[in-house]
């Protein structure tokens, strides 16, 4: 199962009620994935400035851990620190090499993870229901241009914050994905990437989608190219949404095994596992169509 949802505002203002819309959508899909919930939201780009959201750890004294991370981040130019739930959020000047920044934070302890990083992206996710996510992070107040969301039913890996979705493609700022399905050549690809020095944070097969797309995007060609290539390189069942600071799109596997439907109007694009999520979030007269097998679509802001 699992439920995925995405919303893209076409107005270009970057000020749509994004959190509220995504919350309604995943609440309607909550019964498809009661384990954990998460959203990846994009607001107007802040040139030269990253927002980082860091998971403080799995257990122990998180306040002390927050101090430690703040200290390390401050020496790299980190500022505006705030702590919510198991997260530390802060701003930091954009740096040449995201990977060395990640290392400076994540080397503090094995259970510290930069959950999201980017000029425009912020991810919050945790174990529990959509209502829980709203309670902890008040996501309904978030305004922005586009975003993706996920409710998880774990089938092959543990239930915790790190294994929840959306996944940030660690190392590539602003790229996030949500995935419903199974990647059946996951172990093969993971071995290959691990040999090339890629760090895996989880045992969740969905994590590889972000890593894969980051590599394709690094080659150039944009999200549409990357999602289309995915159809030949990733096996299994996948209905997948992916977003960057400027692009938003979906891909559906060649067997159309997992549901995914969408609507596009003059004002917005909304995509979800089931139409019930779109109708719950958005009023108006619009037609919803199920995507076809191998279908790829990308929108740009």
């Amino acid at each position, binding site marked *: 199962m699992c439920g995925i949802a995405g919303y893209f505002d076409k107005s270009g203002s970057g000020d749509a009620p994004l959190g509220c819309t995504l919350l309604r959508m995943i609440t309607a899909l909550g019964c498809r994935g009661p384990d954990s919930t998460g959203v990846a939201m994009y607001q107007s780009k802040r040139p030269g400035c990253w927002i980082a959201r860091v998971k403080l750890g799995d257990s122990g004294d998180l306040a002390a851990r927050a101090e430690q991370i703040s200290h390390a981040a401050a020496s790299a130019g980190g500022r505006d620190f705030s702590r919510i739930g198991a997260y530390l959020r802060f701003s930091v000047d954009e740096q040449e090499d995201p990977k060395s920044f990640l290392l400076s934070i994540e080397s503090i302890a094995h259970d510290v993870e930069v959950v999201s990083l980017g000029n425009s992206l912020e991810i919050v996710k945790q174990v529990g229901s959509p209502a829980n996510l709203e309670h902890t992070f008040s996501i309904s107040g978030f305004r922005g241009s586009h975003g993706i969301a996920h409710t998880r039913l774990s089938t092959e890996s543990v239930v915790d914050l790190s294994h929840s979705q959306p996944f940030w493609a660690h190392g590539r700022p602003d790229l996030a994905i949500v995935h419903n399905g199974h990647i059946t050549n996951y172990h093969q690809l993971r071995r290959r990437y691990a040999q090339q020095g890629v760090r895996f944070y989880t045992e969740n097969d969905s994590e590889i989608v972000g890593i894969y797309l980051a590599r394709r995007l690094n080659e150039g060609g944009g999200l549409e190219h990357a999602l289309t290539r995915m159809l030949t390189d990733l096996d299994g069942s996948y209905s997948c949404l992916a977003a960057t600071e400027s692009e938003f799109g979906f891909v559906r596997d060649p*067997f159309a095994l997992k549901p995914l439907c969408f609507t596009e109007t003059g004002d917005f694009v909304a995509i979800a596992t089931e139409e019930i999520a779109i*109708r719950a979030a958005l009023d108006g007269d619009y*037609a919803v*169509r*199920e995507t076809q*097998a191998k279908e790829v679509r990308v929108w740009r802001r």
Partner: protein
Amino acid sequence: MAEIDAAGRTTREINAAIRLAITAGSGEIIVRNPGARHNLAVALLEPVKLKIAGSVGYYCGGLGDGASIEVEGSAGWGLAESMMSGLVRVHSHAGSGAAAALRGGVVVVHGDAAARLGVSMKGGDVIVAGDCGYMAGFMAQKGTLIVCGNAGEAFADSMYATVCYVGGKIASLGTDAVLSEMEEGESQRLDQTLETYLGADRPAAADFRKVVAGRKLWNFDKREWRIWQEAL
């Protein structure tokens, strides 16, 4: 006409309200604010006219026997699955597996149908005004499958005696699916069916192509093992 407002009600409550209206003798029922809910109007066994003012989720009209259901929005997976008789009409698009295992009656989709349309249908008529996704008609056994637009890949794969008509392009034919000439009067009969269910703005029946089983898979013959290798 009985009116049922689905807003704020559970699926069970909505279906119970539909049954109650039928028992009370309503021949025509309208359900408002369906919100794309699953399992609406499943297994209706009375010749009632039911209109759903909006979209429905999965399995709408499934297992029905005689009811006439009209969906003004779109439908999710498994529309009219295993319907015995009656009519299900969707004004917008239908999701995957529409009319799967259909036994009888008519399913009309005015928009597009997604993957696996009419798989394993055992009777009845399916009419899609738009396009259909891949694997439509897979292992279909009887009845008629009509697609006015384009058909996706592996169309009519491994069929038995279902007859298919396609007005647009076929991305690819499935295993053992073959094009066939229409017989004398067949085009007129197709036109009549199209007129009955799509009305005046129907496409021209003469432009349709007919697809049937090549019958290579009907009986096992080990000399034809290559076909069987590809079949599954």
